[in-house]
């Protein structure tokens, strides 16, 4: 019987290695797998590259991960100068790669979909294209982008079954399904659990194929 449920945070975090690239779902305060992030802090992996839309608010689990010196590099769309990430960056203690938000999502989708590179006009005429390969396609300057795969993805779901099929609540969907397909090891937390077949087949947003472990975190 396929059963992707794990029954402790230790089990959920098992095997995450130093130096891993970790994809972190969420946007704003919605869809962030905070309990899993706390589990990662507890687990101890360091020298991490984290991929997350923004650099973490004061008091967030991401800020805590940064403050513990566990992150070598952050790939994101936003860093606020006043945030811890902003201060670490200015002190040269954190490497930051700023990626347009759509390109970030698309690079992860490419990683999940076996696309080995793609062209986009996004950013092609900007500072972000400096020193990089561009190409004119259909009269438009385009930038070559490469996939952004994760070793691990931490995902927040609303409901899950033992095959790892997932649904999401409203805008908590955001990056979560994209990151789920882009990582070698996708670890989802879910507020609710369903018996196999209980989630309507049409309602599954992330097929269990993309999910490796599910931890039930009620509330």
């Amino acid at each position, binding site marked *: 019987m396929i059963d992707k449920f794990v029954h402790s945070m230790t089990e959920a975090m098992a095997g995450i290695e130093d130096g891993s690239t970790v994809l972190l779902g969420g946007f704003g*305060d919605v869809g962030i797998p905070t309990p899993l992030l706390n589990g990662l802090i507890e687990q101890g992996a360091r020298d991490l590259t984290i991929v997350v839309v923004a650099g973490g608010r004061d008091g967030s689990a991401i800020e805590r991960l940064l403050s513990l010196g566990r992150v070598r590099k952050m790939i994101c*769309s*936003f860093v606020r100068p006043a945030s811890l990430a902003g201060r670490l960056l200015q002190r040269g203690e954190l490497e930051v790669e700023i990626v347009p*938000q*759509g390109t970030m999502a698309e690079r992860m989708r490419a990683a999940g979909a076996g696309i080995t590179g793609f062209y986009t006009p996004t*950013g092609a005429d900007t500072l972000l294209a400096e020193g990089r390969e561009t190409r004119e396609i259909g009269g438009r300057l385009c930038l070559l982008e490469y996939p952004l795969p994760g070793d691990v993805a931490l995902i927040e779901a609303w409901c899950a079954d033992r095959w790892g099929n997932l649904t999401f609540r409203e805008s908590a969907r955001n990056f979560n399904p*994209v990151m789920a397909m882009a990582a070698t090891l996708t670890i989802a937390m879910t507020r609710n659990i369903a018996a196999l077949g209980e989630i309507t087949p049409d309602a599954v947003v992330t097929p269990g194929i993309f999910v490796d472990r599910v931890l039930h975190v009620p509330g």
Partner: protein
Amino acid sequence: MADSEFLPLDRNGIADRCARDIPEGWVVNLGIGIPTQVADFVPTDREVIFHAENGVIGVGPAPAPDKVNPFLINASTTHVTLRPGGCFVHHADSFAIARGGHLDLCVLGAFEVAQNGDIANWARSADEPVKQVGGAMDLAIGAKRLWVVMEHTTKEGHSRLRQRCTYPLTAKSVVKRVYTNLAVLDVTPRGFMVLDMIPGLTLEVLQARTEAPLYMEELR
């Protein structure tokens, strides 16, 4: 001519003026800041479909304080409602909408707009260590129309409408129209064309506050 002879629009006024030009049926993305306020001035009986980068299609007005859904926010991370007919997609699909030409309109704020439609709205200088790009570059290249809402000048009185942008670009040749606290201007092959000015303002006075050359179509 003294400033007292005309009253620049406040942020709500700019948003209201922009909202007037959005017809029913358009799919519209609103950037952070003044652009977000534009939605407040679209009458609710005019069906405009607001798209938020975080995958919300059909964003509705803010909820009553006791009706907040903690899972439902817009791209400015403020709580919103969903209109009937709205739905949710994930981030890659959401940006497929933005980058794939499915937005009839995107309204962004900006530091500067150039007369050829270049926009600078993400960084004040190339050397700035901390940058925030968000979805601006994706939206700027992808929408069918890009409109900018912004103050006509900086606090120091420097023109934000320029012959060339001095700040790092977000995208080249994409802005179609600019709404400022003083005027509405189209970006045309001839440069900025003034469509509308606030009452009491003349083209000369507007030009005096604008680094880029302006022109108006003669009434025929």
